[in-house]
């Protein structure tokens, strides 16, 4: 495939998906042009809209990166949402319960670390089931999404519920555990730098290290990898855990940088959107950056669309699904290198 096509196809896929979603809206009696205008306004209309888009792109980039890594290695991690929730839960638990026991400068790094570790652990459950019990990660990661969702729901009305016990939410995180905003920004926080930098790190890992070569070999041909003394089981387990860590980190960044406390369902639809991000990126770590911006814009604009054009924001999911279908359908299945 030429480089031009690699860039053109995702654009075409997005455009066609938008057009089809518009047609669906028209069919249901809504005004697709007004909806699109509201969507664009909500995503790019002013500096707050732009910041909203950027803030939404952060977790999508990290989750999408994890999905891209795992799909490349031939392992279907559909559990980004659950891993994100586990990360958000752990980061909140640490920040609200024990951050005060640590020096202030360590509160934030440790909260982020706790999130990444919890996400990794959540994915490790699926990895262990796969390695030791031959359970397909497709089912286990999906089921673990539901478990994580209920776990968070329980936590915010149980052990982690705010001191006043009024709402199903945690206490606000202490300031020391919060990610600072960019100077002059309304909501854009410095955690986005991490989300922007990690794709480059993962790119280097994939294409410039022995570990990356092993991982790609396993994804393309596990038999040949095994004959070359690479263990597919070990590599896939590692990748699953790594993608879980990225998702968990995304969850921690959400509570430390955006929401400031834990609510029920911290993942929202991010888990599934991440799959669309990774596929639109052609499973390329750097492609994840623009792809996450596309879906972040849709998510940010979706809210505005629902408010001003009375079009349900869930229509964004339709667009995501269509982008996935066009990404896999019109380019016949094939995997590329760098």
């Amino acid at each position, binding site marked *: 495939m030429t480089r031009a096509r690699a860039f053109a196809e995702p654009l075409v896929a997005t455009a066609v998906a938008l057009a089809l979603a518009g047609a669906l809206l028209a069919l249901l009696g809504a005004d697709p042009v007004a909806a699109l205008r509201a969507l664009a306004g909500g995503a790019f209309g002013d500096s707050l809209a732009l910041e909203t888009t950027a803030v939404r792109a952060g977790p999508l980039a990290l989750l999408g990166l994890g999905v891209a890594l795992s799909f490349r290695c031939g392992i279907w991690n559909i559990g980004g949402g659950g891993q994100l929730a586990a990360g958000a839960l752990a980061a909140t638990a640490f920040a609200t319960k024990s951050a005060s026991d640590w020096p202030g400068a360590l509160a934030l790094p440790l909260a982020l670390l706790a999130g990444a570790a919890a996400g990794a652990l959540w994915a490790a459950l699926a990895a262990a089931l796969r390695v030791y019990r031959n359970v397909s990660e497709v089912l286990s990661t999906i089921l673990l999404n539901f478990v994580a969702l209920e776990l968070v729901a329980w936590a915010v009305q149980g052990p982690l519920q705010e001191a006043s016990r009024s709402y199903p939410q945690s206490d606000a995180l202490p300031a020391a555990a919060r990610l600072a905003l960019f100077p002059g920004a309304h909501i854009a926080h410095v955690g986005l730098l991490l989300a922007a930098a990690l794709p480059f790190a993962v790119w280097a890992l994939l294409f*410039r*290290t*022995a*570990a990356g*070569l*092993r991982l*790609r*070999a396993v994804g*393309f*041909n596990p*038999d*040949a*990898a*095994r*004959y*070359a*003394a*690479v263990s597919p089981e070990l590599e896939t387990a590692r990748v699953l855990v790594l993608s879980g860590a990225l998702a968990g980190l995304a969850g921690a960044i959400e509570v430390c940088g955006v929401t400031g406390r834990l609510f029920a369902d911290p993942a929202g639809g991010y888990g599934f959107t991440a799959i669309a991000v990774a596929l639109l990126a052609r499973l390329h770590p750097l492609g994840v950056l623009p792809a996450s911006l596309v879906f972040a814009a849709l998510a940010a604009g979706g809210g505005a669309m629902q408010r001003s054009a009375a079009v349900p924001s869930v229509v964004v999911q339709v667009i995501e699904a269509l982008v996935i279908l066009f990404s896999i359908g019109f380019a016949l299945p094939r*995997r590329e*290198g760098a």
Partner: protein
Amino acid sequence: MPLVALRDLYKRFGATRALRGASLELEPGSIHALLGENGAGKTTLVRALYGQVAPDSGEITVGGKPVALASPRDALELGIALVHQHSMLVPALTVAENLLLGERGAEWLPPARLREAAREILTRWGVSLDPDARAESLAVGEMQRLEIARALSRGARVLVLDEPTAVLAPPEVAELLRLLTALRDRGMSIVLISHKLEEITAVCDRVTVLRAGETVAAQPLAGLDAAQLGRLMVGDALPPPGRPPATEPGPVALRLAGVRAAGLASVDLELRAGELVALAGIDGNGQRPLEELFAGVLARESGAFEVLRPPLALLSADRQRTGLVLELSVAENLVLPEAARGGAPPVFRAGIVNATELARAAADAIARFGIRAHAADPARTLSGGNQQKVCVARALRAAPGVLVAVNPTRGLDVAATAAVREELRAQARSGTAVLLVSTELDEVLELGQRILVLFRGALLEVPAGERSREAIGRRMLGEGAR
């Protein structure tokens, strides 16, 4: 008028031109040999006749009428049946289920009726198999007889067999050839693909020779001898067979004592430095488990496995499945084993790729083995011969003390075959202990200083005084087995 005619067929797969002017005319009541080297297009041609390959151009006629064969169903309806080179049975289904698969008839088919129908077919065609046995439990020869019986039971009048003798021992080959002659005498038309000249001269009436996808000869067989056929096949005189290297065996480099594993009964083997030992045997007698054992993929249940002059390198039988990662580049394939060892220097430092060293390693391999490709080309884009050269280069990168090669020339053309065989000899001369596992008897005789036979997962030694096709053939069927 020929019963079946394929005229001037062309077929391209990506960059490969599999057929470029291939023709075949089959007379009724005859056995027609389709002869050609590996890769000459024989399989593609018969798959076109069976509706499995859509030719880019050309014409197929049956009984003089042009036909469009869109699927095997079309071919079967015209009475054309193909017995593929590799078994086309469904392993998890029973003999009876396989026999009746695709047959038309009453929709209600309870197990009792299925068994009864199968038994009838088996009896009619003289195949003694248990209808309830699973296909995966059959020996290769039994699978083949089952497939032939299935073809005959569907009323085939044209039977095409793609290299049916490749998986058989010499006495089984003789039995199959007797069956084919009997069928011919009953009026059946048969196409027999082979590259074994003596089988062809034994039973065939006419021969069509393919070279590089093109029909270069089509004539009665009478009056042609094996040497003339060989010239037609390769376009030149066959290269004279080489000899085993004349080296003095050194100290023991590899020792297997009483090794048992799934598919291996009990393997005892001592391999010395500088020695080239050839292991003959019919496919399915433990070649695959033995290869997996050497690859470190199959765990042994008991016994000792010692590599006294490490490392051990393996040339896998299946380049595309276990040898190479086709999507990775030539360079990446070359260094994959080093990446597996946590990133060994000099190509990797602290697990990170050193681009200069990687480029140098690839350039060295490309120059030394004459690989016609660039370092960054995906392995998929290489020809079979060049892929095998990459595998050889990779195996030798580790400077192995023991080299195990499993069917290393399968699917290669004459020049590539000669190059690989010479490399094995060169390795033995330089002091490496070389084990060649091959199902090609000629290759075994040409290379092996010592010859062993793999039979039902155990090794039989062929005494030096009995180096003949016959003696080896008898052991391939188990003579002298404990």
